[in-house]
């Protein structure tokens, strides 16, 4: 097949560029260790989550999930975990009371929805998830410096989608330990 030599050179350059893009992405996964959210959070029954939120069911009956609390729970060392529910039209915790994590911690977040799809996006960061009823999104994030992050719902969830917002507060360890959980 006849291909002009300029176009042959361009094809080679384009393939090089494509491989370059793929390599950068692999580097991001291997070097800084950026990980995609997967299926290891497991599944749950969204009706159970909904019932537990309404105090009609005990959280221990909800598969793969625990009661959401504003203060992250200590696991060991600098590891913490937090359970968050995204629902129409609030983050719990987040909207009423902010989610609190200590500075210098590694937090595993478990997020699910009792109703429709939501987004869990910490504005200005790379923490950005789709939350799906029936699925639990499990991610681990390192929070180094104290500060406050805003959360917005980034996936259309109904007529009041635009008011759905919340807060994540990264507080110094001593302040974290002394507050009520």
């Amino acid at each position, binding site marked *: 097949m006849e291909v002009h030599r300029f176009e042959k050179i361009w094809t080679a350059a384009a393939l090089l560029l494509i491989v370059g*893009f793929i390599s950068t992405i692999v580097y991001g996964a291997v070097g800084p260790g950026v990980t995609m959210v997967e299926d290891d959070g497991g599944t749950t029954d969204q009706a159970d989550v909904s019932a537990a939120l309404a105090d009609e069911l005990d959280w221990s009956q909800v598969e793969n999930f625990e009661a959401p609390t504003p203060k992250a729970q200590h696991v060991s060392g600098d590891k913490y975990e937090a359970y968050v529910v995204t629902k129409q039209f609030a983050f719990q915790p987040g909207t009423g009371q902010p989610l609190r994590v200590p500075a210098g911690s590694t937090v595993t977040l478990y997020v699910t929805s009792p109703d429709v799809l939501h987004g869990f996006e910490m504005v200005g960061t*790379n923490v950005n998830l*789709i*939350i799906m009823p*029936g699925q639990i999104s499990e991610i681990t994030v390192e929070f180094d410096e104290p500060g406050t992050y*805003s959360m917005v719902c980034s996936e259309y969830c109904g007529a*009041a989608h635009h008011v759905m917002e919340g807060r994540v507060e990264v507080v110094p360890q001593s302040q974290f330990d002394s507050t009520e959980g």
Partner: protein
Amino acid sequence: MATNETTFADQFPKSARLTRLSFGVAFTALAIGGLFGLIQALHRTDIYRVLPSPDYYTLLTGHGVLLALVFTTFFIAGLFSWGISNSLDRDLPGDWISWSWWIMMTVGTVMAALAIIGALIPQIPMQADVLFTFYVPLKGHPVFYIGVVLLLVGSWVAGYDWFRTFWSWRKDNRGERIPLQTFMVLITMLMWYLSTMGVAAEVLIFVLPWSLGLVSQIDPLITRTLFWFFGHPVVYFWLLPAYLAWYTVLPKLSGGRLFSDPLARVVFVLFLLLSTPVGYHHQYIDPGISEGFKFVAMTNTMFLLLPSFLTAFTVVASIEHGARQRGGKGYLSWLRSLPWDEPAFTGMALAGLLFAAGGFSGMVNAGMNLNYLVHNTLWVPGHFHLTVGTAAALTFMAVSYWLVPQLTGKKLRLRAFALIQPYVWFLGMTLMSNAMHRGGLIGLPRRTAEPEWNLPGGSFSEGIGSLNEIQLQIAVGGILLFTGIVLFLAVMVATWMGRETPTIDVDSTIPPALSGAENSPRILDNYRLWFAIAVVLVVIAYGVPLWDMVADGVFSPGSNPVTP
């Protein structure tokens, strides 16, 4: 027709009729969808509001469906009907089968549109505030989903109309290479058949029965996955017709010839093979899908850049050929020798230029972990307004300036409007899209009536630009784009309604390519082979993950409907 010359409409009246009627629906959808877009742009920037914020989502659904599903599909149906007859030198049968596709598509459109608009009109007891992607568990009225199905099935029958015309040509032309425009239509439709399997399964097996109450719960993960099985290739369904115009019409408008017919064929085959097994790149941040499948989708997507990179070279080389035949010289000054005062040329050339930018933001979207940065932010509409909104839409408008006179036997009217329209679009899109990209980087979400200005933790940080300046550019850009639509529609209406003229002032002849089909291996025309390979690639990419999703229960973990 009263012209002294023989136009396409004279030679192929049935094809011309179907094309005109398809364009008619397309342009109507463009008008309404475009108006919604203007209202949205002014609403979410808080500059001028005519509706309460919950109604924003009704308009947004209308904007997406009317522009990205109706305007596109109908225009493409018209363009492909023209392309088949033009390249095969043969009219479409124009029998009840031909008419059935147009009728099905139109009835489906009206049903879906009524269901959407119903949210704003108390007398219509329907709503479909579910957006163009209609993600479950949000539920619209069943009439919406039935409308979408009819639009889809109609498009399948249209494809059959083109295939059977090709087969009848084939009987009289054994051994001939498939004419390029027909080749492009057939390959695009094969990709369409393969990809629409996903959304057809989603709607017919899951969403429609669920919306009718026949099944109480369906799994959002399966339905979303089936949607994106279709949702990525649909963008190539929009793009490949634009490529058809760029490869076969734009060189002629530039005063030159297509640089390489063989490469055009290779590009289309690559799209057939790779467009569908990439859908997971829309689900990088979804739960329930392992990183391995996301990685495979990422690599497939990155290689899918290749046919577009090749297109850039071949199309620009063809334009350059035209410029040099018009006397152009030097490394860059040949650009000045091009017919910038010819609306059809200018529209397509500017569409291609903006597409080069939109391609880049698509590369970012495709970048798996990089997607965390931009997913569901305003960056994403910034991207797709450059691609479907310009590469496709502006090209469609540009090609109409050249084609509609040939379809109606009437000269182009309001030429001055046609002349400035592409430049107005270019300016409006540059302003709106660049602001949307920057807005996304400072964290502004998409698909929201009011980005939450008063965030408790602080507002959107200023990045490359401030919030106010970004909002202003989006509003001004949106106004300019709507002006562009008005200009275009004015030209179309004036031309269509105008008197017939002795001449239509359009040279419809397309010169042969510099390197013709005879320089390419015959196997390229073996569309059955390419389709088979495409199916295998899809099974590899989707077989295991879809099986996993179904294995834990076809309808579970399930969700009940939620009315938005």
